[in-house]
C-alpha cells in the first residue's frame, strides 16, 4: 500500500503541491486529473522518489520511500515520465531489456528474456523490436518505453501522461492494457491523465488537484459529475451516459 501523508513541495517560495494526503489502494487504477500546473506530475515524481518532498512523507508498505534500498524499490514501483530524450542509439529490444536491470544488473537470464519477450508482445512491438528508437514515430517510441516499464514487472506502475503523442487507437490500446494489468495480474496503476474521458472510462478512483491542493478524491462515479467537475475545472460540463461509460462533453461548455 502507498500512503501519501501531508506532502508539500515548494519551487522557490511558491508551493506547487500543498499538504496532499492520499492512500492508494492496491489492485486499482487511480487517475490524477486537474488543470495545467495543478501539481499532478510533481506529486507523481515525489511518490516515485524522483523529487524530494519539502514536508510530509510517502510510505510504501509503511516504510518511508526514502529509506528503501533503491534497487529493491525499483522492483516494487516503476515510473515513466513524459519527456524521454535519449542520446544513445538503442534498439527497442535493448530499451525494453533495461526494464530488467533491477533484477539482472545488466546480465540477462533466460527468465529475464522471457519478461522482455512478453512486454514486447504486450505492447505489440514484435515487428519493430530490432529497430533503433530514433527511427520510430513519437507514439511508437512511447509504447517502447511503456514496454520497458512492463518488463520491470513492478507491483506499482506510475505513468505521467502516457497518452501524449498517441493517436486514438493506441491510446485506447494502452488504457486497455493497463486495465488488464490491474484486473488480470493484480498490478496497481497510478496515472496522470489529461483527457478526462479516459479517466472516467478506465479508472477506479480519481484524485483531482487544483493549484497544488487536493480538491476531490473518490470513486470515479462520484467525481465524474457536473458539480464535482465544476469545483475542479471551473467549467459546467454536462455528462452523458454511453453504454455505461460516463462521457464529459466539455467541448462547448
Amino acid at each position, binding site marked *: 500500500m502507498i500512503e501519501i501523508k501531508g506532502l508539500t513541495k515548494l519551487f522557490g517560495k511558491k508551493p506547487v503541491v500543498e499538504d496532499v494526503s492520499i492512500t492508494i489502494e492496491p489492485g486499482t487504477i487511480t487517475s490524477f486529473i486537474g488543470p495545467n500546473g495543478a501539481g499532478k506530475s510533481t506529486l507523481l515524481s515525489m511518490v*516515485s522518489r*524522483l523529487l524530494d518532498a519539502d514536508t510530509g512523507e510517502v510510505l510504501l508498505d509503511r516504510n518511508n520511500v526514502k529509506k528503501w534500498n*533503491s534497487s*529493491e524499490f525499483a522492483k516494487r514501483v516503476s515510473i*515513466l515520465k513524459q519527456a524521454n530524450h*535519449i*542520446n544513445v542509439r538503442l534498439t527497442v529490444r535493448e530499451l525494453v531489456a*533495461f526494464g530488467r*536491470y533491477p533484477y539482472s544488473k*545488466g546480465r540477462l537470464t533466460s527468465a529475464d528474456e522471457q519478461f522482455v519477450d512478453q512486454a514486447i508482445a504486450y505492447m505489440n512491438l514484435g515487428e519493430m523490436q530490432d529497430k533503433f528508437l530514433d527511427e520510430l514515430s513519437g507514439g511508437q517510441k512511447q509504447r517502447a518505453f511503456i514496454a520497458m516499464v512492463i518488463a520491470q514487472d513492478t507491483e506499482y506502475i506510475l505513468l505521467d501522461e502516457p497518452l501524449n503523442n498517441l493517436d486514438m487507437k493506441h491510446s485506447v490500446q494502452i488504457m486497455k492494457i493497463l486495465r488488464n494489468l490491474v484486473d488480470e495480474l493484480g498490478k496497481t496503476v497510478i496515472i496522470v491523465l489529461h483527457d478526462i474521458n479516459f479517466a472516467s472510462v478506465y479508472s477506479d478512483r480519481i484524485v483531482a488537484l487544483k493549484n497544488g491542493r487536493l480538491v476531490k478524491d473518490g470513486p470515479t462515479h462520484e467525481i465524474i459529475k457536473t458539480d464535482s467537475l465544476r469545483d475542479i475545472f471551473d467549467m459546467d460540463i454536462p455528462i452523458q451516459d454511453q453504454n455505461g461509460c460516463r462521457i464529459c462533453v466539455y467541448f462547448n461548455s
Partner: protein
Amino acid sequence: MPKNSMKLVILAILSIVCILLYAFYDIKGGFDYAFPRRMLRIAAMVVTAIAIAYSTVVFQTITRNRILTPSVMGLDSMYEVVQTFIYFFAGSLSVWVLNKYLNFGAAIAVMVLFALILYRFLFRADKHPIYLLLLIGMILGTLLGSFVTFLQVLIDPVDYLSLQNRLFGNFMNVKKDLLYISVAILFIAFIYGYRIMDKLDVMSLGRENAMNLGIPYDRMVMNILILSSVLIATSTALVGPITFFGLIVANLAYQYLVTYRHSILILGASLIGIVALVGGQFLVEHIFELKTTLSVIINFIGGIYFIYLLLKESRAAG
C-alpha cells in the same frame, strides 16, 4: 555484438603496431640508451590516452552531451591556476615545485575540490539542470584563465619559463617519477569502473529512467565527477593539458562503435587514444622532426573537429 568485438580487435592491433613502430623504428646511437627512454614515453602516452578517454566518456554520460568535456568545466584551467599560484607565491625553487609528488597531490586535491564545490553549489537543489553546471564551468574557466594570465605577467621571467614548460603538454619530457603514481591511480579507477559499468549504461537513459531502474543517480553523478577530475588531473600533471583530445577520441568511439555499452565505448576510446598519441608522436618525431609538438597538432585537428561537431549539432537541432 560480434561486429563490435571485431572492431575492438582491429583497434588493438593498430595500437600494437603503433607501439612497436615507435619503440623500434630507426633507433640511432645505443639501443640501451634509446630503448628505455622510448618505453617510458610509450607508457606515459598509454596512461594519458586511457585516462582522458575514460574520463571524457563517463563525463559525457553524466552530462548527457557529446560536445562538452571536463576541460569545459574549467578543470584544465584549474590545473594552470594551481601551478601559477605555486610559482607566484612560492617561486620555482620551492618544495611545492621541486617535489613532484607534492605538486601532483596539490593539483589533484584542488581539482577534485573544485569539481565538488561546483557540485555542492549547483546540485543541492534538485531542479538545476546539468547544463547550468556546464555554463558556469565555462564562465569560471574563462575567468580563471584571465586571472592566471594576469599573474603570469607579474611573475619573474625565469620562473615563467619554468612554469610554461610545465603547462605545455609535451611527450618528450615525461615526468617519469609521476608515471608510477599515475599507473596506480588508473588501476584504482579501473577497479571502481568495473563495478559501475552496468550502472553507467543505465545512466545513459537519463536521470528519471535511471532512478526508476534503481540507480542512486545523484550520488553516482558525484562519484563519477570525482573519478573524472582525478583522471584529468593525472593526465594533465603527466603531460600537460591537451584540451581537445578527449573530444576526438570519445566521439570517434561513439561513431565507430554504435553501442550504449560503456565497457566497449571506454575500451574503444582508449585504443583510439593510444593510436592517436603513439602514432602521432611517431609522426612528430620522424616526419616533422620535432619541429612541432603533438599537443599542438592534436589541438589543431581537435579544434576543427569541435567546430564540425558544433555545426552538425546545430543543423540537427534546426
